[in-house]
């Protein structure tokens, strides 16, 4: 039912008038069904239609365009999304080889490649499609113009009295300040040594920020952890100077000694193991830091003694 003759005359590839019809390659036959009229569906339909196929473009919503028509800019060029998509919408609507079936769903698909039978279910529009010209007058005159969206119910986040006492001073300091989230998270991190979920929910409510943003910031930075940290956090420096002096071997040795991979905490919450990109103590490389104590010129053979000293002596500080 289709041939190269139905191509748009502007298509430089067609030039059907100059080429004798018997010399042209075998014409494409059959029809193609494209489901979904987003930017991908539209572009596929246009490409197929330009190469001579009949295209049925089925779309669930009443209009084609999809998500891209709702976007402001696109990555990576930051071009305006509508500038890209709107010419394609027009092309798609006007293309003689494309038949738009909007407000419809794919109901059934049977057959084999080359011989499909498709049932498409059209949803009711409650207008006579043959008579409607799309003038828009009915829309203007419809008395129901606004839908009411109720405010989402505010979630009350309750904290234990102890948490509340800790959090009050932090929130007081940063409330109504621009860029308050990161400093607030720092203070919570100092107070709890990690960021507990219920506290983050509380922060989100009190600072009036979406929880998703709080979560995004909390997981973006290496200094924060959403899991409880051990009493002693062993941080192995992975700066360049430490690395070439065997920092990764020290890390592996700690992993063996503590019986866990980096990024974890021992079950009794005594030790946590982390890496850090650089302490700026490259002169003492390789460096290991336990909480605030820095151990320079570290050797693998010191590990058992180091761990023992923290385990036994509680808060007694040691010099490496």
């Amino acid at each position, binding site marked *: 039912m289709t041939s190269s003759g139905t191509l748009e005359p502007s298509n430089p590839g067609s030039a059907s008038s100059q080429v004798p019809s018997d010399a042209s390659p075998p014409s494409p036959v059959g029809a193609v069904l494209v489901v979904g009229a987003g930017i991908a569906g539209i572009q596929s339909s246009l490409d197929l239609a330009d190469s001579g196929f009949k295209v049925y473009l089925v779309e669930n919503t009443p209009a084609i365009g999809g998500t891209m028509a709702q976007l402001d800019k696109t*990555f*990576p060029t*930051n071009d305006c999304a509508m500038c890209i998509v709107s010419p394609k919408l027009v092309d798609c609507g006007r293309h003689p080889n494309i038949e738009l079936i909007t407000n419809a769903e794919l109901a059934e698909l049977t057959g084999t490649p080359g011989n499909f039978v498709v049932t498409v279910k059209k949803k009711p529009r409650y207008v006579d499609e043959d008579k409607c010209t799309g003038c828009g007058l009915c829309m203007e005159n419809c008395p129901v113009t606004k839908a009411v969206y109720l405010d989402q119910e505010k979630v009350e986040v309750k904290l234990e009295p102890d948490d509340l006492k800790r959090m009050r001073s932090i929130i007081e300091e940063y409330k109504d300040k*621009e*860029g*308050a*989230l*990161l*400093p607030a*998270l*720092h203070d919570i991190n100092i107070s709890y040594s990690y960021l507990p979920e219920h506290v983050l929910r509380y922060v989100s409510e009190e600072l009036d920020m979406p929880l998703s*943003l709080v979560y*995004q*910031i909390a997981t*973006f*930075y*290496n*200094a*924060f952890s959403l899991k409880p940290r051990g009493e002693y956090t062993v941080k192995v420096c*992975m*700066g*360049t*100077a430490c*690395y*070439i*002096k*065997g920092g990764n*071997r020290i890390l*592996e*040795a700690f992993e*063996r000694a503590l019986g866990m991979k980096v990024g974890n905490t021992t079950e009794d919450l005594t030790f946590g193991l982390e890496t*850090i*990109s*650089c*302490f*700026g*103590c*490259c*002169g*003492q*490389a390789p*460096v290991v830091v336990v909480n*605030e*104590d*820095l*151990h*320079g*010129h570290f*050797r*693998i*053979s010191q590990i058992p003694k180091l761990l023992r000293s923290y385990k036994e002596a509680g808060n007694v500080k040691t*010099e*490496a």
Partner: protein
Amino acid sequence: MKVYRTNVMLCTCTMCVSVGALAIRKRLEEEIKKQNLEDEIQVILTGSSWLCTRGPTLIVQPDDVVYQFLKEEDIPHLVEEHLLKGRPVKSLMYVHPETLYPIEKLHDVPFYRDQRLIALWNRGIIDPDQIDEYIARDGYKALAKVLKDMTPAEVVQEIADAGLRGRGGAGFPTGRKWEFCRSNPNTPKYLICNADEGDPGAFMDRSIIEADPHSLIEGMLIAAYAIGASKGYVYIRIEYPLAIKRLISATAQAREYGLLGEDIFGSGFDFDIEIFRGAGAFVCGEETSLIHSIEGRPAEPAQKPPFPVQRGVFGKPTVINNVETLTNLPRIINFGAEWFAAIGTEKSKGTKVFSLAGNINNAGLVEVPMGITLRRIVYDIGGGIPNGKEFKAVQTGGPSGGVIPKSLLDLPVDYERLQEAGAIMGSGGLIVMDEDSCMVDIAKYFIEFTKDESCGRCTSCREGLAAMHEILTNICEGRGKEGDIELLEELGEATKEASLCGLGKTAPNPVLSAVRHFRNEYVAHIRDKKCPAKVCKALIEYEVDKDKCTGCTLCARNCPSQAITGGKKKPHSIDRTKCIKCGVCIDVCKFDAILVTTGESP
């Protein structure tokens, strides 16, 4: 003010504290008291005074004698001999690596002698917690000069004439950046000091702040006056607790003296500084990410233009300068643009602070004039490579920079020359590598770092670096194949081309420069499945040197996988099927009897 006969300057930077400087301080004060010298001798705590690998260090002034590698038990002897009897203790002095003769005077030590101090003007001379000591060293004099005698335009011109360029890495002329901001009619304006020193292997910003926080504050005041800002931020890494503490104390003192706040020196100029703690994200060193981080938004970079001087923090014109750039300012104002412009090379003026680290005798902070050769930094100042090993390469600029091989050791160090060699000046990390460093492994290390730190916004950076990391891992683990090197180069160029911010644009540099200068090593890994530097685990074997092994059983007892066997006083042997190549045996062996081979010998 009380005058003391002798001042004992004890370095209490993060590094010296890590090796026990605070215990030494306590002992010193006890011993001085014991000898009844407390009215004659004063102990002063300074920051980053000297060779950082040789800490704790101590300088006795005015004798100009320097002591290194101090231990608590050395102190009684030192106090009695030097401070009481006036006889310097030779056994604790710096020993020249070649002549093996102790050097008494600080200014005769080659490490110190060949440096030229501008940004580190007050290193190891003043107590960073005492504003009066800074003022005594002409502190805040430049600020007074600027506020009383110069218009903002004149200050901008002075800095432009001096030819100061950004010390954060890219080297943009500071005067020009300021002029863009100064002439912008939009207000208020902001000044940000970028102290988010994320490059692994760089520690000059930390040391400057720990040693001399007031230089930074004065520099910020001068910059703020020039651009018309009344609010400044210092964005500092959370990994530097001591620097943050000293900076907070310094700003409090400056506020008390009326040097920060409203109507400074009665000139009508207002300025205050807020200290903003970073949270361990490398990308925050990029200026647009840093701005987003301060605003409390996800710290992803933005497209430039608009540049921060047009639209910066909270949408207002913002100048972002590095710590070292700002600490240069008081000296430029005091001594004049001509004095500064006379130092350095044609396009790169002044000095640069480098943090020298890695396989080098004298690791530490060095400030040298631009245009000095790498050879002089590595051999004259750095004292060469330890243990008689061969120099292989020096890595500059951290994960954004590249490696410079031995053949380019006579390269004069300035912004342009380093770029030509495939590296960058960067913030100033200089990591020296000896023959035992594998160039594939180092490239893999940097790509792993940038892969983890990539914010994931640009596909090219997120996926390109992951793909490069996979190829490098394959090469290191003996699965490299022909064509990998070319693919790495292609991926690297594409990532550089297509990424938005400085992180992605520079992240492939370590690989590209390593491939350029050390292609043979890559070929050896891929074709011969050998790691010439004996680093890549999959391509090496451990074995015991039968002649050196005394059979002490230390290695066998410490081996985590019970791979070492052998009787007492008999040479041991390593079971290669059990060996996990962890390196514990090398670490514990006292006789250097464990050998690493490329797997050729049986």
